[in-house]
């Protein structure tokens, strides 16, 4: 089994939320995905240690990169992230750890939040987060 470097990661999105066509979001350099599950304690008398039962995963994550409004960019930039965050339609996200193996990814419907960071001492950057708006799948 080969370990992977994140330099070939990718985030794709379908703004309509129907799953196709997916387009690569330009100028991103990070994404995270959390699949933490709820747990409820059910420790009872006589147990030798605490016990839990677990619920469903709470799918959420983040993305980050540089603001790219797309003017002159061959891949339309990443202003679509702001369109999605300001809209009401859940988008389809596809999160790929490495495009060297594009068959491995996570995908599902999501609602987005975005933020932009402008500093006199660096490039304009953007960041955002998402939560699941439907069932997610891992391939």
């Amino acid at each position, binding site marked *: 089994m080969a370990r992977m470097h994140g330099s*070939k990661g*990718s985030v794709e999105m379908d703004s309509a939320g129907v799953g196709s066509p997916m387009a690569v979001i*330009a100028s991103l350099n990070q994404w995270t995905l959390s699949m933490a599950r709820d747990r409820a304690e059910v420790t009872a008398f006589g147990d030798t240690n605490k016990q839990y039962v677990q619920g469903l995963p709470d799918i959420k994550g983040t993305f980050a*990169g540089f603001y790219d409004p797309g003017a002159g*960019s061959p891949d339309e930039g990443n202003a679509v992230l702001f369109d999605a965050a300001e809209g009401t339609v859940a988008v389809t996200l596809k999160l790929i750890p490495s*495009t060297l193996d594009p068959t491995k990814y996570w995908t599902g419907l999501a609602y987005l939040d975005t933020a932009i960071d402008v500093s006199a001492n660096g*490039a304009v950057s953007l960041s955002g987060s998402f939560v699941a708006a439907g069932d997610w799948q891992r391939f």
Partner: protein
Amino acid sequence: MADASELDAAIVTALANDATLAGLLPDGVFWDIAPSGKTRFAIVSLTIHEDEYLFEGRAFERATYLVKAVDQNVSGAIVKVAAERIEELLQDVTLVVTGYTHMLTRRIERIRYTEVDEVNADIRWQHRGGRYEVYLSPEASGSPVGSP
């Protein structure tokens, strides 16, 4: 693939083509080292060149250059004016660099010092200028760098 050496050349060219600077520093503009015998010139040196990456390739490149006027003189009057002219030519001025979109050039440090000549201790060399930071974005930033 964008060649960062084009930025080196663009800075040297921007300074070398300026008639005002040429009048102040008639021996010319040189990369790293001036030829022997020159006494009034400008030097451009690369201090550091860093790359910032995206998933798809290189987002931008950040280079820092030492750019200074040098004069064999006990007085700093000429290098003072020359350093001011260098700043006018570089600070917030768009550079045309093959393969890149220029983002920013600005001075991040001022330089001024006097050097004693290695051969003749009675001779002084005046150095004045600055370290300049340049941000560039490769024009094909949406394309992979190197082999996938």
